[in-house]
């Protein structure tokens, strides 16, 4: 679906024409888990893994509070989290030192503000950067009037955020759709729930899961509608009964048989255009998440500690379900399951922001568009003409046939 072609040549031709390094980046909104691991191996050294995860949760909490104070929809939060995780696929994770002068470039909080800033814009909830900064800094109890680097803290921070925004745009490859133009997962679960005729409680359960899953890297692996459907399927299998919610709608409890009948009727691809392997990938990820992190999850706070029916802790229900789903067909990672293959993929390198200033980098969404035919034709024509005329002909025409050397 996405692919990268990259060729750098810096004046090795020996002709007088100036040539610049150039790069074409085809937006790749999703990665396999092997690819994620590979990317993280460059950006997050092993000894920092733990602090990355801890910091991520602090940051998410921080971002969540900003979004709440500014009264913006949850999808802004989802996009911010997506950007934040994407940023650390291509940039090394570093902790800001606690020295006198704050080092904004490395500070994950600044990264988070930049992500939030771009997410606000992308989700059409416009807010001045100044306002975002002031809310954020107040929350962290930072005095943004103190002088750093000969200017106020806020101004210094703003400068870095601007710069980071441009970096971030390159990280997302100017793909503002994030690979799909459907809504965020939290909206989707409610819509799908309604369409399938699922009762309030089960839908609430789905929504809580979506809230938990929002903070995981699953959004970098499969598109939102597949995540949403995976959540629905997990919930329908678990058939939650006791959920402590604030608004307990007094509708009659739905029978498990009814939920089963809904479950049986779901056709991933026909009804929701979700490829089954992707949904399966999501289901296993969600179950894995709860098996390992049940006690930290938000869902856990809304469920009684012990399931009334089985008399066991809630986590066992997830484990039991996982064992039933063991033989689901998931994504094949054959094309990216070892280091040497991954290493050949130029896309999975730390991104060099300087290319844009030396030469240029071109960003495209996909390679299916017809206009390439035009360009290809032109180059082939050019190659033939070259063959007749110039000495460089051989080199040029071979270049057209075999892209990279």
């Amino acid at each position: 679906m996405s692919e990268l072609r990259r060729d750098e040549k810096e004046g090795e031709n020996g002709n007088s024409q100036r040539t610049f390094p150039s790069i074409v980046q085809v937006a790749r909104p999703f990665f396999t888990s092997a690819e994620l691991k590979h990317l993280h191996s460059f950006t997050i050294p092993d000894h920092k893994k733990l602090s990355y995860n801890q910091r991520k949760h602090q940051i998410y909490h921080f971002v969540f509070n900003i979004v709440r104070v500014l009264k913006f929809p949850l999808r802004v939060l989802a996009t911010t989290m997506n950007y934040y995780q994407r940023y650390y696929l291509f940039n090394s994770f570093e902790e800001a030192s606690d020295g006198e002068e704050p080092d904004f470039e490395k500070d994950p909080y600044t990264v988070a503000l930049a992500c939030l800033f771009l997410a606000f814009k992308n989700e059409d909830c416009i807010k001045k950067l100044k306002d975002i900064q002031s809310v954020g800094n107040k929350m962290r109890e930072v005095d943004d009037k103190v002088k750093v680097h000969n200017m106020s803290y806020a101004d210094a921070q703003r400068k870095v955020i601007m710069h980071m925004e441009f970096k971030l745009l390159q990280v997302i490859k100017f793909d503002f759709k994030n690979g799909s133009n459907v809504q965020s997962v939290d909206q989707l679960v409610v819509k799908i729930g309604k369409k399938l005729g699922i009762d309030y409680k089960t839908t609430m359960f789905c929504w809580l899961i979506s809230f938990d899953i929002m903070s995981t890297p699953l959004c970098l692996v499969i598109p939102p509608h597949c995540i949403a459907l995976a959540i629905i399927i997990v919930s329908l299998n678990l058939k939650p009964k006791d959920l402590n919610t604030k608004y307990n709608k007094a509708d009659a409890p739905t029978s498990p048989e009814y939920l089963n009948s809904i479950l049986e009727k779901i056709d991933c691809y026909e009804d929701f255009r979700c490829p089954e392997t992707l949904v399966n990938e999501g289901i296993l990820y969600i179950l894995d998440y709860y098996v390992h992190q049940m006690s930290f999850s938000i869902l856990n706070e809304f469920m009684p500690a012990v399931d009334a029916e089985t008399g066991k802790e809630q986590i066992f229900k997830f484990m039991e379900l996982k064992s039933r789903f063991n033989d689901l067909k998931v994504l094949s990672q054959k094309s990216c399951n070892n280091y040497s293959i991954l290493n050949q993929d130029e896309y999975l390198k730390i991104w060099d922001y300087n290319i844009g200033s030396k030469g240029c980098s071109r960003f495209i969404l996909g390679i299916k568009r017809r206009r390439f035919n035009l360009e290809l034709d032109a180059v082939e024509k050019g190659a033939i003409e070259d063959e007749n005329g110039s000495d460089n002909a051989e080199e040029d025409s071979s270049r057209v046939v075999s892209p990279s050397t």
Partner: protein
Amino acid sequence: MTSTITNVQVANSTCSNYSKDRKVGEGTYAVVYLGKQLSTDRRTAIKEIKTGLFKDGLDMSALREVKYLQEMKHENVIELIDVFSASNSLNLVLEYLPCDLEMLIKEQSIIFKPSDIKSWILMTLRGVHHCHRNFILHRDLKPNNLLISPSGQLKLADFGLARSLGNPGEDLTSNVVTRWYRAPELLFGARHYTEAIDIWAVGIIFAELMLRTPYLPGKDDVDQLDVTFRALGTPTEQNWPNVSSLPLYNSLRVYPPPSRQELRNRFSAATEKALDLIIQMTQLDPNMRCASTEALLHDYFLEMPRATDPSELPQMPSKKKSEKNEPPQKKVKV
């Protein structure tokens, strides 16, 4: 930026291969150059966006333009050919479209035949329909944003105000669309609106094509209400249920709705079916206004004369063919 040529050669030629020849305009957030795709000799317009220079970073309208144009490819929507970054600026490569509908309307020497008008409206509606079926609102339709290619195709441009359809319960800003083309619900400050605002604008453009002068030229926002309702009647609870609950609906002068005969007199060149379509597109109540599909299927497009073939539509006289692409004077709306 002074360098003229970004000369790059990459295998398979999926490379940036554009020259920037001439500066044609400068706006608040972008400089527009006229250029060429070197490999194909195709003329392009390159919008160079100054990033990071402004207090709010990448401009919202640039972001919107990329976001929505990347998604759409249609004969009647401007094509975003490329996005590339060079020397720390962001460049959008757009189709080169030398002319716009406003220029044609103002050019006194050109006579519009009924079939020409039909052709332009048809192409506009096709473009709008494509946006709407992708759940995108254009929100700034006006003759000045309807660009015309050398082959006569009309294309919607300037997606700097576009956005996707709002979710229920989400507030949208009513301060969109250039004043003369603003639908009544926007004039009343509605916080939620739909595709109908674009249809209204098309209706007003249709009228402008027939009249050769702006149909509802309000001097300011208050005057716009007056001008609009003087022409089309003041909305009441009878013809637009719940209109009085909109924020800015108060102390209006009440004008009666125009009779069919009055409209006939105003648009003396319009056929009955053309008049029908205008009336449907300029219904005061957005729920009564027709959708782009209905408009495209309207009898007006079936009756004679047939819409002129784009290649035969009137063009600007060559001496005045100014090489203007997109007017860069963008309004930043929050």
